[in-house]
């Protein structure tokens, strides 16, 4: 019976995000050859029956497992980094390792303050001998290029002054662009790009407010149906806590792929000193479960302990 419990514990230690190092040491570390054979025979998702009569690690699973082993290390290294270097490295990785994942670039360009984004651009110079906009322009193609280059180059005004008249007329422009969405992608519209990439965040929030008056619809509804990138940009700029909550929730799901999972580390580490408290509140109100509990249930070992430590500092 202890066998079965041990097997379950081992399976749990090796599934989810991160690895339960302690359990592996205490169970597997102390096991004799017979126990380990049982472990291999019963863990059919890790080991396959080789034709030459031995249980062999599935290569694909080893690679996945290695990613889990390293999750704690990556989180710690990212945590110790200066925020500027963090953001620079994240953007570079997003550009060069994963060509199609522009979300990280959007996230950093839109959720950082003007000075933080500037810092990231300086660090990017030091690390890569290129400017961030240079590399984004070269690696990103299509409609997204104009938007992303402009977003990473922005140095938005951060004061409270907003021109309500301009906000109203720009709400009209955006509504029109979204309505014409099936004929022309809104992010190809010069005015949409101008508004999203140069206006201050308070101004954009004012546009949101006026959107309902001028178009009769709630901007969230319209945007949900519109281009994905437009949606993410608007959310990052105007409602980052909801954005981060969603991204983290996707990362914790069982069917999350490798890149989606990385978001958990990225969000917790990059927001821990900024607005993690607000993100926790938003997460709770969106999903009815405390984020700390979700992480406790779905992460393991040192990785879990590190995340929870970041989340419960005071």
């Amino acid at each position: 019976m202890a066998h079965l419990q041990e097997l379950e514990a081992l399976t749990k230690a090796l599934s989810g995000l991160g690895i339960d190092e302690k359990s592996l040491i205490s169970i597997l570390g102390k096991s004799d050859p017979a126990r380990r054979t049982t472990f291999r025979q019963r863990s059919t998702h890790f080991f396959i029956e080789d034709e030459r009569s031995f249980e062999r690690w599935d290569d694909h699973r080893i690679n996945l497992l290695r990613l889990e082993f390293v999750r704690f290390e990556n989180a710690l290294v990212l945590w110790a980094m200066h925020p500027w270097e963090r953001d620079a490295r994240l953007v570079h990785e997003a550009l060069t390792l994963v060509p199609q994942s522009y979300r990280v670039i959007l996230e950093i360009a839109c959720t950082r303050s003007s000075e933080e984004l500037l810092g990231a651009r300086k660090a990017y110079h030091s690390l890569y001998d290129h400017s961030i906009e240079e590399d984004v322009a070269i690696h990103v193609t299509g409609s997204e290029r104009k938007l992303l280059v402009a977003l990473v180059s922005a140095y938005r005004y951060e004061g409270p002054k907003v021109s309500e008249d301009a906000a109203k007329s720009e709400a009209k422009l955006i509504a029109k662009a979204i309505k014409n969405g099936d004929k022309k992608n809104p992010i190809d519209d010069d005015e949409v790009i101008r508004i999203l990439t140069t206006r201050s965040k308070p101004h954009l929030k004012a546009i949101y407010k006026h959107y309902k008056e001028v178009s009769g619809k709630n901007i969230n509804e319209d945007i949900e149906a519109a281009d994905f990138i437009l949606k993410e940009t608007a959310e990052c700029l105007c409602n980052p806590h909801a954005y981060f909550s969603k991204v983290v929730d996707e990362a914790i799901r069982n069917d999350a792929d490798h890149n989606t999972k990385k978001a958990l580390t990225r969000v917790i580490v990059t927001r821990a000193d900024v607005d993690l408290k607000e993100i926790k509140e938003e997460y709770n109100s969106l999903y009815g479960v405390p984020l700390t509990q979700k992480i406790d249930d779905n992460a393991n070992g040192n990785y879990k302990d590190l995340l929870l430590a970041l989340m419960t500092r005071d």
Partner: protein
Amino acid sequence: MATFVVPANVSIVEDAETLRKACEGWGTNEKAVISVLAHRNATQRKQIRQAYWDLYQEDLVKRLESELKGDFERAVYRWILEPQDRDAVLANVALKKSSDYHVIVEIACVRSAEELLAVRRAYQARYKHSLEEDVAAHTTGDVRKLLVGLVTTFRYEGAEINTRLAKSEANILQDAIKDKKFSNDEVIRILTTRSKTQLMATFNGFKDDQGTSITKALLGEPADNEFKRLLRIAIRCINEPLKYYEKILRNAIRKFGTDEDAITRVIVTRAEKDLLDIKELYYKRNSVPLDQAVAKETSGDYKAFLLALLGKQD
């Protein structure tokens, strides 16, 4: 090298008092204003403003604005501001009053990356908008793309050159010129993201390959294309700013009806930088010293002020 002469012993407090006396009572003692301000560097001018405020609880700049007139007032006003503040004012005037967008190109392309950043900050402090916000809102189409790209870039400033890249991007530029598609996205990408060193290598590669400089190749039809004009100015400001400024002066002085704005702008913004080199270039090109040419086309206090900045000692 700077041109104007700063005396060895400067008393900031005395300067503030001198200026106060110059503004008191009937009329203004313009000579006294020139004798102080035209012979103080940026740090000293800033200290004088502070001392004036400490002594008299009045903003020296505002006082001078009300006491002085015409071209003289405009020149002194620009001179007394800190360089980044000055550039912010020049950019704003170019956008909202004169539509002389080449001024914006000048600022974006001649200043270093850090200086341009300082201008963006000063612009926000003064106008409660970001520079790119206002540039985007006042321009359209391709001119907008070029100008916004130029003012928002934070160029890498290292000396590295990628020769293969320079060649391929020179070809892209050549193709665009050949097809008369000057404003295609690739041209804008290259001009608004690459480092200056890399761009100069590209322009050199162009010349080696085509036998003619890229600015010469951009002459010709269509003649009155605003985008093409600004593109040429951007290239000249990046590649050979001294020659560019010499030509501005030459045109401003030769033109029927002198262009005082241009003369003021060049002399005031370069007096602390490279006006000496521009003077040498001017003499080489025109066989007349710049001082002499300026003296012939200007008069009164304005002339006296310009000549003092050009190096004349009382």
